[in-house]
């Protein structure tokens, strides 16, 4: 299946409702069936992270890395390519993070220890996780 994104969102992809509708109507069903989906961004010059998130993030989280074999992104401007890369990275990272926490949960309950993420104490309710990534480039 090939989807022309410009026809749906114009040159600026920012409408999350449209993205979510496309995800549920076309992308998710195709991926579930193991069919390829080509998202053609020809003519789309800018997208927001929220738009791409609504478009593909949940499909990646529920299907996992295998979804990347079926998703193709065509004619992406540099900005669009960068945003897609970001969303793919954190969607699959957070899937691994959730799996890691789920694995830890029975052990934690058994030992009555606080949850941890990246070696840091994490609120038991799954809240306020501290995610710190500093790119230090001070001269």
């Amino acid at each position, binding site marked *: 299946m090939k989807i022309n994104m410009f026809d749906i969102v114009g040159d600026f992809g920012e409408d999350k409702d449209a993205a979510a509708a496309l995800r549920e109507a076309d992308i998710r069903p195709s991926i579930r069936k193991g069919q390829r989906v080509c998202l053609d961004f020809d003519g789309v010059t*800018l997208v927001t992270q929220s738009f791409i998130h609504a478009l593909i993030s949940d499909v990646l989280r529920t299907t996992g890395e295998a979804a990347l074999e079926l998703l193709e992104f065509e004619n992406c401007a540099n900005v669009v390519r960068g945003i897609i890369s970001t969303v793919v990275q954190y969607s699959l990272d957070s899937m691994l993070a959730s799996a890691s926490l789920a694995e830890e949960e029975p052990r934690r309950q058994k030992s009555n220890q606080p949850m941890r993420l990246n070696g840091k104490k994490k609120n038991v309710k799954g809240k306020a996780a501290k995610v710190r990534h500093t790119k230090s480039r001070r001269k």
Partner: protein
Amino acid sequence: MKVFLPNSANLQNITGLLSGLDLSNSKTFDFSMHKKWVAVHPVVLAMTACLAEKFREGGGVVTGKAENVPTLAYLIRMGLFKYLGVDPGKSITEHEESGRFIPLTQIQNNDELKQAIVNLVPLLHAPAAVADPIKYVFSEMVRNALEHSQSTVGAFVCAQYYSESKRIAIGIADAGIGVLNTMRQHHDVQSSRAAIRLALQPGITGTTSRIGGNEFNAGAGLFFTKSIATLSRNRFCFYSGDSMFRLMKTRKRYDPELHADPNDDPHSFVRAPLLKGTVVGIDLSIEQGFEFAALLEAIREAYFIDVKQKKNYAKKIRFSP
């Protein structure tokens, strides 16, 4: 309720506005301004218009008067007195705003946002390098307000281009439930300051306790917006409840650094009058030849969630050609 526009209130000195702001009494709304000079950031106009609209929605009448300052025509043209419902005592000839400013605009739904963005492009009258970050911030911040704030008057936005400094200032305000009430639905936060800190961190959203968000929200819009301000060496402010976060400018002798935790940024938290709603102000100065894609790449590097099994998926994404 009292709003006093001081002679100067931009992001570097916005605390001057806070000292003349009284949001405690909701039965009256008195507007006043400095008698000799008023130069304020669009965020001040957006907040003032939003507060006035919310007050009138409750059946109140805004009172006050305009002063005949040299910038009065500008304030009228931006639409401030239209939303205040106060007679400025002067009429002006409205000139074409192309490339200079975006007057106060009330946005209450998705269709109005889309229309505002369509209208925004010719107003910007700028190359993609300049227009793209503005469109991006506009969309993300207004969508945040529409989706999370429950503001019955929607969001108010306006922007101003300063040709000398090549800086674009944007203000967005809503009169909704505020960031504390939004964040506490799924997170254990007790103060506006803690809620703002949390809301600015990547991967944390008020719609779920899950890190990385849910199928509709990633918790990244504010982080991206703050990062755009950081990397363009500009300021950003976020005001909700009784707290205001102010991101300071990165000095020229340092390379800008992105931090997931806003407490690691050059910043200050300021105690402020209790605001029912959320206000965001940002300055952007984007030079010609600037690559928005490069900026986003830097943000991406700072964003990803660092788990033990961390992998780099970039090479597995099927881009073509």
